[in-house]
């Protein structure tokens, strides 16, 4: 199953990068969303997918799934949520000020005057 997951992760990263490189701000934000999903699934996969029981103590169960990656993912999820919320607002504020969502029109401060 890890093989399939590796491919799914690859697809997520690929789509994320593709979106991030596009001109439209909205698509860039969609890209960052996919990026974090890819990263989280990667942690999960790296922990191994073969366990049979969730890591919650229960009578007579010994084959728990590795709980550590799950804890890490949970932390990462919350953090990416915070970042996503921030980005959404940043995005629409930028759009409001610049009146465009075309990144090509937001040439940076590298003017060589």
């Amino acid at each position, binding site marked *: 199953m890890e093989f399939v997951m590796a491919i799914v992760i690859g697809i997520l990263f690929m789509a994320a990068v593709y979106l991030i490189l596009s001109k439209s701000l909205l698509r860039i934000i969609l890209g960052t969303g996919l990026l974090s999903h890819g990263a989280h699934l990667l942690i999960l996969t790296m922990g191994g997918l073969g366990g049979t029981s969730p890591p919650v103590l229960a009578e007579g169960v010994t084959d728990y799934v590795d709980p550590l*990656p799950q804890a890490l993912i949970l932390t990462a999820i919350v953090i990416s949520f915070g970042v996503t919320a921030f980005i959404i607002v940043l995005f629409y504020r930028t759009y409001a000020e610049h009146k465009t969502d075309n990144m090509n029109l937001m040439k940076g401060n590298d003017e060589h*005057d």
Partner: protein
Amino acid sequence: MINLLLLPIILPFFFAIILLFFKENVRVQRTLTLIGLAISFTFSLVLMAKVKADGVQTLTLGSWPAPFGITMVSDMVSVLLVTTSILITFFIVMYSFEAIGKERERFYYYPAVLFMLTGVNGAFTTGDIFNMFVFFEVFLMASYVLIVLGGEKKQLRESIKYILVNVISSALFVVAIALLYSVIGTLNMADISVKIAEVGQPGIITVIAILFLLVFGIKGAIFPLYFWLPGSYSAPPIPVLALFGALLTKIGVYAITRTYTLFFIHNMPVTHELLLVLSILTIVAGCIGALAYFDLKHIMIYNIIIAVGVILFGVAQMNDAGMTGAMFYLIHDMIIKGALFLLIGIIIAITGTSNLRKMGGLMKTNAPLGWMYLIAAFGLAGIPPLSGFTGKLLIVKGAFEAGNVWGSVFILASSLIVLLSVIRIFIYAFWGEPVELPTTKRRSYRIMIVPAALLVVISIAYGVGTEWIVPYMTDASDVLLKPSIYIDAVLKE
């Protein structure tokens, strides 16, 4: 007091939280921030004395045994960085009183600064690779807030780029940790070191090592991952720029140094050679940029990149002189960058522009500022006996000893470019015919000059008083070069 090593992290955090209660009361915020920083600084000094006397301090949180809980580790490297960070933040906060403006102060400027310091100090102190990621996120999130605070058009535009790059690097950080965990099955850095040594760094770990280099390289702005930095750093107001310039890239540098001395050390012909090459290319890229611009901020920003290259070049030597030099240079660069950014901030405040071509003759009106700038500039270029010299000397020596002769000569030559880039500012802004200053915008810079001057004085003391600093730097370089010191301290039973 076994929790001592946490105080430089917890105290700024605590004060940041307290400040949230005083949103509208700027005066209280200012006072509390300074008090908080002063207390944190005091404790960091106590901690430094303790580390000097008793060696590496460790604490595994929650009383759990070492690789299972999160371990915080204060060795000389981290405590030096922590102390310097607090000190610089203190002066920048002082400078902010005049420079940042009431509006920003009312909108959580100081809490954001303190949160960022929390993250920075945490990242310097943690002994757990995932916890380092969390602290990275703390200071990153705070830096997002700071870079965009005020919502000017330019800020918004550049913030997007800054955040985008950092989101990508954070994702890669998570990826790298996940891969490492898959192979080695642990997160504690000392434990990672032991386990990598056990399996002898096979290819997959080398690949992960390179991935970590890239992740930290994005934060630390090494070639070819630095491109985002000049534009983004030039957007926020000077105090924020100074904070970023003095602290943030150094975390990337620290993280590379830590991982490349503590655990990825069994395949140096690949990993460290790559680091060496990238560090030289970083210097080249920085030099090109430092010469290409006529904008005060840009010139200084590119000098950040050059310094990153120089420090990593020293680290890549993996010998005593090189490492001690890198440590010297690292701390020096934090202080001097802080000072220089504050100084150019004053220049910009006086002239109302950051374009060098529109300035001139400030020597006639602001001579003390000119002298301070000149001293700081020479310090940056590594002219003895100012602060940059010892570090550069040792790095050069280390490189010669390691056989990187041409790299070493190159580092020396790059100092000339650094000197040229900063002296040009002096010549254009302070010499020449005075230009008419925009009287309407001009305001008293007396309050701003105090912290700048103090930082310059500290940098001079750092250079002249090298003798007193050497023992600390050698301790730092020892712990980096002998991972066993670190490991034993963490995994002691």
